[in-house]
């Protein structure tokens, strides 16, 4: 049924866009062991900046580097508050997130819509030159797939570098990092910077796809990110060849599929979130299910 296919395509696109956010939360929560609430602020920050730039006629492609820089700045703020001002991780993130709420309002007001006449990365000339023949819904899928996979690969390569190894070390045993004569504070800041750059990028793509920014769109995104990271890493726990980035990308897709399933089930609208929770539980239980004879890890 073409409508089922279209729905799958649309849901997949959502999953791929939000995978960028999942990468960000993966870095801070899983690798750095730093619960970072900045995400609720840096995600809409990316969208706010994008909405304003697009409305002013900026190139939709160039919004990407701008948004990465802006998200990096948000991560830097949290990092500096944590390391230099000695505020604990959770609170440092909350401070930045709270400040960003006001900053986002200043940048783009309470909401900002991008007119259809304005081009996004899905409708601009270079994209149309390559993909002009395909329907918008498929263009969105192709482009978001490219972006999600590109950044996944960049991250995977980064983790094989010395800097990436040190990042993994600081979350695992920060004492060792100090004994190796490196400043663990600086290493954490690098992690926060990379993470929030990716989260802001997610906000940018969401804004281009939906053509809107809303100052409340960040609420609950860190919960989303954590859910996708946990779902992804739990499901692929036993398959060590699946990289962490791949696992959380799939986690994001599964999350969006769960919501769309709940919507499609036609059950009372208020039960949407409850149904989603039940679906997550199902996924996690299946993921935790161990074949008999294999010891559950301690």
């Amino acid at each position: 049924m073409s409508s089922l296919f279209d729905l799958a395509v649309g849901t997949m696109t959502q999953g791929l866009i939000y995978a960028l956010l999942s990468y960000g939360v993966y870095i801070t929560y899983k690798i750095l062991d730093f619960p970072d609430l900045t995400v609720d602020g840096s995600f809409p920050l990316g969208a706010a900046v994008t909405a304003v730039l697009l409305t002013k006629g900026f190139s939709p492609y160039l919004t990407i580097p701008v948004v990465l820089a802006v998200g990096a700045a948000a991560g830097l703020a949290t990092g500096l508050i944590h390391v230099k001002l000695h505020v604990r991780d959770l609170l440092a993130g909350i401070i930045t997130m709270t400040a960003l709420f006001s900053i986002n309002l200043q940048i783009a007001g309470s909401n900002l819509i991008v007119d259809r006449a304005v081009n996004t990365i899905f409708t601009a000339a270079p994209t149309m030159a390559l993909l002009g023949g395909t329907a918008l819904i498929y263009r969105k899928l192709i482009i978001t797939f490219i972006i999600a996979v590109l950044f996944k690969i960049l991250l995977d390569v980064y983790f094989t570098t010395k800097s990436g190894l040190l990042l993994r070390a600081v979350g695992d045993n920060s004492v060792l990092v100090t004994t190796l004569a490196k400043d663990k504070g600086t290493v954490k800041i690098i992690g926060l910077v990379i993470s929030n750059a990716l989260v802001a990028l997610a906000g940018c793509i969401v804004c281009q796809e939906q053509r809107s920014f809303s100052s409340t769109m960040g609420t609950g995104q860190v919960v989303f990110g954590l859910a996708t990271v946990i779902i992804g890493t739990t499901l692929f726990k036993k398959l060590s060849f699946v990289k962490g980035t791949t696992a959380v990308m799939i986690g994001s897709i599964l999350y969006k599929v769960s919501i769309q399933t709940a919507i499609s089930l036609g059950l009372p609208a208020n039960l949407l979130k409850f149904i989603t929770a039940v679906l997550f539980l199902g996924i996690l239980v299946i993921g935790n299910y161990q074949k008999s004879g294999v010891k559950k890890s301690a």
Partner: protein
Amino acid sequence: MLELQNITKIYNPATITEMCLFKEFNLTIGDGEFLSIVGSNGSGKTSLLNIICGSIPIDGGQVRIGGESIDRLKDYQRYKKMGRVYQNPAMGTCPHLTLLENMSLADNKGKPFGLGSSVNKARLSFYKEQLAILGLGLENKINIKVGSLSGGQRQAVALIMSTLTPVDFLILDEHTAALDPKTADIIMELTDKIVKEKKLTAMMVTHNLRYAVEYGSRLIMMNNGGIVLEKSGAEKKGLNVVDILKIFTDISIECGN
């Protein structure tokens, strides 16, 4: 050469629990010395290590290495030329990284951690050689996650990692205390071997009087922030555990322990 000059350290100043641990404390450690430090709990031996490493601040005096003061240096900066093995075997290695990755980390100490590849294939045989020194078969397990090794094995790896790159001092912070007697012996033997082979200057804090007596070139016993006994060279060779134990007990009784 490490010098502690007139070190004063007061814990909880101006409070009801104020305690002056060190008052104008002095200690010099020459190049190539292997110093053992013993003493009861609270004698100041661990604080001494922490002062040298920069983990705790001092209220007076100076710490000098090679004639230059290191007081301005932060803890991670001091570790450039120092290695440290902790009492807790979990503190010396990263459990979720492989043995190879841990070795690669240690190998890069003192150099920038940039965007170059984290693992240098050319060094693989060197890492295996180093691990082979331990005699624990770890050179064949170089791709397993360190978290699945036993405490003793992790401590052995920590020992190798702490000296993989050249260091001026090796600080051994009760590094056998958490191990079972057999493993502790193995680690102590390995420590001695590595210190001798690499001609390191080492400071070992220990509760084990036998190790303090049998290994190392110099022994000091601390109590209440001061040195109450010091033996080195030929005198130290002539010591036996029973004598030390008696001195230790006498001091303890004196202090009402």
